[in-house]
């Protein structure tokens, strides 16, 4: 099913998204990948403030190429999500509603998603030039010293993603291949 949603979105909207939905996101999302996750995680464990509010927000696992003059951002496709798995349950417990990346998630992440009602989207890996066209504004808002790994606030328009794991734990990676093989049996 094709849907258009506005970010940030609330838990009720999360529950309406189902594995396999093709979704276009418009609104505000944040980028963070390995190094920024590690910092946020360690700060939260120490009981310190982190530089962005997770509540109701969506994190895009992205480290873009530098923007050329006059451009908003460079190439901007997703990185592999599993490297963030260690840090994710804690972020979900602090109110994170959505994640955009690519690839499998751990059992712990999926359990935490169903418990906290969050959604995991995949963007097309390796389509960084195409996806950059949907990013209308980008601003480094924290951890600037991390370069490409800094946290950026993005304004996106019709950013194309697919719901891979929904808030009930349905996992498209587990069902899509089996469904394809069933449909295309000789």
């Amino acid at each position, binding site marked *: 099913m094709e849907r258009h949603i506005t970010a940030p979105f609330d838990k009720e909207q999360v529950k309406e998204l189902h594995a396999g939905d093709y979704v276009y996101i418009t609104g505000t999302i944040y980028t963070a990948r390995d190094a920024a996750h590690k910092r946020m995680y360690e700060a939260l464990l120490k009981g310190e403030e982190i530089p962005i509010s997770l509540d109701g927000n969506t994190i895009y696992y992205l480290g873009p190429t530098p923007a050329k003059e006059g451009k908003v951002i460079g*190439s901007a*496709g997703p*990185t592999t999500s599993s490297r963030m798995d260690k840090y994710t349950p804690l972020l979900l417990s602090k109110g994170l509603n959505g994640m955009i990346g*690519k690839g499998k998630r751990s059992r712990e992440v999926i359990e935490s998603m169903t418990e906290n009602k969050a959604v995991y989207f995949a963007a097309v*890996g390796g*389509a960084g030039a195409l996806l950059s066209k949907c990013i209308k504004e980008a601003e480094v808002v924290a951890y600037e010293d991390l370069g*490409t790994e800094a946290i950026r606030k993005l304004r996106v328009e019709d950013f194309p993603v697919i719901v891979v794991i929904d808030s009930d734990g349905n996992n498209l990676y587990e069902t*899509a291949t089996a469904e*394809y093989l069933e449909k*295309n049996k000789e």
Partner: protein
Amino acid sequence: MRVIQKDSITAAVREMCIQANLCLSPDMEARIRNAEKSEKGTLGKKILEQLVQNMDIAKEEQIPICQDTGMAVFFVKVGQDLHVEGNLTEAIQEGVRQGYRDGFLRKSVVSDPILRQNTGDNTPAIIHYDIVPGDKLELLIAPKGFGSENMSRIFMLKPADGVEGIKASVLQAVRDAGPNACPPLVVGVGIGGDFELSAILAKKALTRNLESPSPLPHIRKLEEELLSEINALGIGPGGLGGSTTALAVNIETYATHIAGMPLAVNMCCHVNRHVSVIL
């Protein structure tokens, strides 16, 4: 003896870094375009459509095809009758520095695997040298993204494992990689040599033109069979189901020990980049 100046090497490397990250080679591009036409999965087809659009946008607007512009890996053939005026390795590193800076490419290298401080200029590159007859310098760059690199494997197979063992291991590596390595993949396979040579062969296999299968008949057959068995897995583009899990399987081999059959599988996503020049 022929002499080559270090600055001309740096200039060539700078250009190669930029070119490799903006345009795929014609053989790679053709495979992706053909896959988009033949893909049987619904979501798989949609993803391949995006990948075709992505290649076109990258070329027209000079945006890197993928944001992971990789660690710069080089295969360098140095003619033994060539004299390089200056430090060859530093000339290559300087070319990487300039190319990644001037091409607005991502700096993805940390100086220490544990301390993890970004070097800020994407150096050092990884350079494999071969000494060859002649007086030419052949440079091949293959910027390698790590989404797929992380899903690569080495299997120290035994002679008794045979071709069946090789196939089972490669298929297992592809299954384990699943959506993480950004399928459709190019699968580079190195068989033989020893522990480290098998891995280098696997990486080298990724740089071979996809329309030039192995000249060895039994290896060519293995490449064809593996490609069809991988595509029967149904993993598909993006891991979301489909007939195109791999675009190609390239295998390189070397002599090995009577007791062993090392097998390395170097995964590469559909952004399999490589550019070469002869100076």
